[in-house]
């Protein structure tokens, strides 16, 4: 569709993705693009695209911020159809430094479904047999509900009057309060994401210059109230179109990434990205030990030292996970592999696990075993690109755990201060 609009083939693309996408989802998007013959220049979280646009706008406003080093902090809140994303960015001189990201699978679709359920509680059972007429009715109902929600953004009550045919009618006056009550859970989730993002960014609310609301649902008054309330701001940033901001930002990134230069310096931009999810391994019993924490600047490289739990343990199983849940099983299994260890008393071999995320967001795991007193690793270092398995392979880890029990376990070696 884009190709027919532009009247020329598209080869390189910049895609924006929700913050809460796991590495599997990113990999799948890349695969899909490869199948379609598209070269992915960048996969960027949606709010960071907005951050880039904001950086450019600020660059235009104050041309000399770079010299003074004055930076502007902004909170970006994006509520689309399926996902809610929040980012805190520090901007100066065209460089937008992402301080923190948070996101969750909650969005306009949930609001719409809640509302449909509210208007017609039996709607789900009514349309169960999926006939053509049912689907048509359902979409009529859907569109009508959507219109009602839109009207509630500007007025306090709305008259819902839908004729569903065959004697079914929905006539109801819905107030804004009702709407907010029905979607309480959605709004609470959004609020939690904003609070978490501000907390992770370690930002003093007083230093926050702008609050940017984008996305299809950013017009809902309650959403505005919540975000502005949490940020203790009177009004939000009005410099960009909430529906186009993400796309504009992505277009800018595309221009930067393909090396287009502008003599006026308007494209002298850079986004410093962070990882949205922690990545770590299973160790210390059945615990998730993060190696790279969420909101770490990319490219990143960090290592932790682990050691064996058994006398003369000759192998260790390394299982890698991505996520931020305390419970190991709730996180995504990225892969697993074994390293060989020379026989030694327990606790003496040092197993170095290094995670490396390079500039193009490829995650690698390097593992090396060192015996104390020797500077060289005992075996060549293993290097593995992740994810190794596909999504939903958590059962693999379970099976391995059943087979080996705790015989291949690791514990983290606390650094002596």
């Amino acid at each position, binding site marked *: 569709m884009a190709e027919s609009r532009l009247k020329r083939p598209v080869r390189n693309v910049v895609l924006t993705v929700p913050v809460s996408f796991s590495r599997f989802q990113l990999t799948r998007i890349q695969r899909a693009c490869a199948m379609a013959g598209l070269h992915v220049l960048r996969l960027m979280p949606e709010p960071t695209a907005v951050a880039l646009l904001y950086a450019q706008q600020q660059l235009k406003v104050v041309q000399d911020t770079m010299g003074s080093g004055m930076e502007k902090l902004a909170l970006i809140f994006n509520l689309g159809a399926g996902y809610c994303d929040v980012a805190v960015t520090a901007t100066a001189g065209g460089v937008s430094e992402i301080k923190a990201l948070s996101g969750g699978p909650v969005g306009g679709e949930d609001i719409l479904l809640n509302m449909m359920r509210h208007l017609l509680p039996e709607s789900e059972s009514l349309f169960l047999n999926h006939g053509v007429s049912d689907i048509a009715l359902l979409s009529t109902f859907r569109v009508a509900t959507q219109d009602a929600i839109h009207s509630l953004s500007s007025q306090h009550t709305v008259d819902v009057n839908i004729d569903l045919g065959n004697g079914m009618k929905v006539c109801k006056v819905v107030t804004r309060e009702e709407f907010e009550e029905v979607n309480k859970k959605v709004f609470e989730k959004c609020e939690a994401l904003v609070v978490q993002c501000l907390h992770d960014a370690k930002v003093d609310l007083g230093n926050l210059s702008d609050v940017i609301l984008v996305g299809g649902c950013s017009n809902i008054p309650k959403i505005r109230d919540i975000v502005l309330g949490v940020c203790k701001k009177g009004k939000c940033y009005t410099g960009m179109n909430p529906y186009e901001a993400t796309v504009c930002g992505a277009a800018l990134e595309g221009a930067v990434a393909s090396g287009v230069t502008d003599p006026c310096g308007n494209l002298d931009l850079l986004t410093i990205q962070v990882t949205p999810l922690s990545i770590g391994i299973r160790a210390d019993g059945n615990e998730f030990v993060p190696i790279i924490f969420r909101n770490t600047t990319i490219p990143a490289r960090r290592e932790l*030292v682990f050691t064996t739990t058994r006398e003369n343990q000759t192998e260790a199983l390394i299982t890698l996970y991505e996520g931020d849940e305390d419970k190991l099983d709730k996180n995504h299994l990225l892969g697993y592999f074994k390293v060989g260890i020379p026989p030694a008393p327990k606790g003496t071999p040092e197993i170095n696990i290094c995670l*490396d995320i390079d500039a*193009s967001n490829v995650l*690698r795991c*390097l593992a090396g075993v060192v015996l104390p007193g020797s500077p060289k690793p005992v075996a060549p*270092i*293993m290097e593995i690109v992740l994810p190794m398995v596909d999504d939903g392979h958590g059962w693999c880890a379970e099976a391995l755990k059943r087979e080996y029990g705790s015989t291949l376990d690791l514990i983290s070696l606390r650094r002596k201060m």
Partner: protein
Amino acid sequence: MNGTLAALSSSNSLFLSPVTLPVVSTNYSTRNASFPRGASVKSSVQTCPEPTARKPKASSLYEVLQVSRDATQVQIKSAYRTLAKTCHPDASSHSSDGQDFIEINKAYLTLSDPDSRALYDMKLGFGMDGPFGYSGRAGFSPAVRRWETDQCW
């Protein structure tokens, strides 16, 4: 303290040191093919050894950021941004492996937080007052620096 640091440096610098180590790459061909951005990422520290081409190690975080010891927070921030524009793998036209930027970012993280900066300044001062003076400390400091910056992550 000396002893502890030496022991730590032996274990910590396995991957972070500029010394090239042999690497078994399990799926080399797929690795190169799967890079969305081709050339700029081909040189990871292990696979493309050019220890001589690497810049000499700066002896303090202040030198990494190219600021003076008494730089203000604002100066540090703007120095970080300027360096990011030249060293960030997304920004630089020549192929860069991102290792420079990681160093810069670590330095920035330490120095931009007043607490960790104070701690770092103390360590740095401790080395300066020692019998070796400035030149004697040079070989020793990378180990200190790594250990230090790891703590703030």
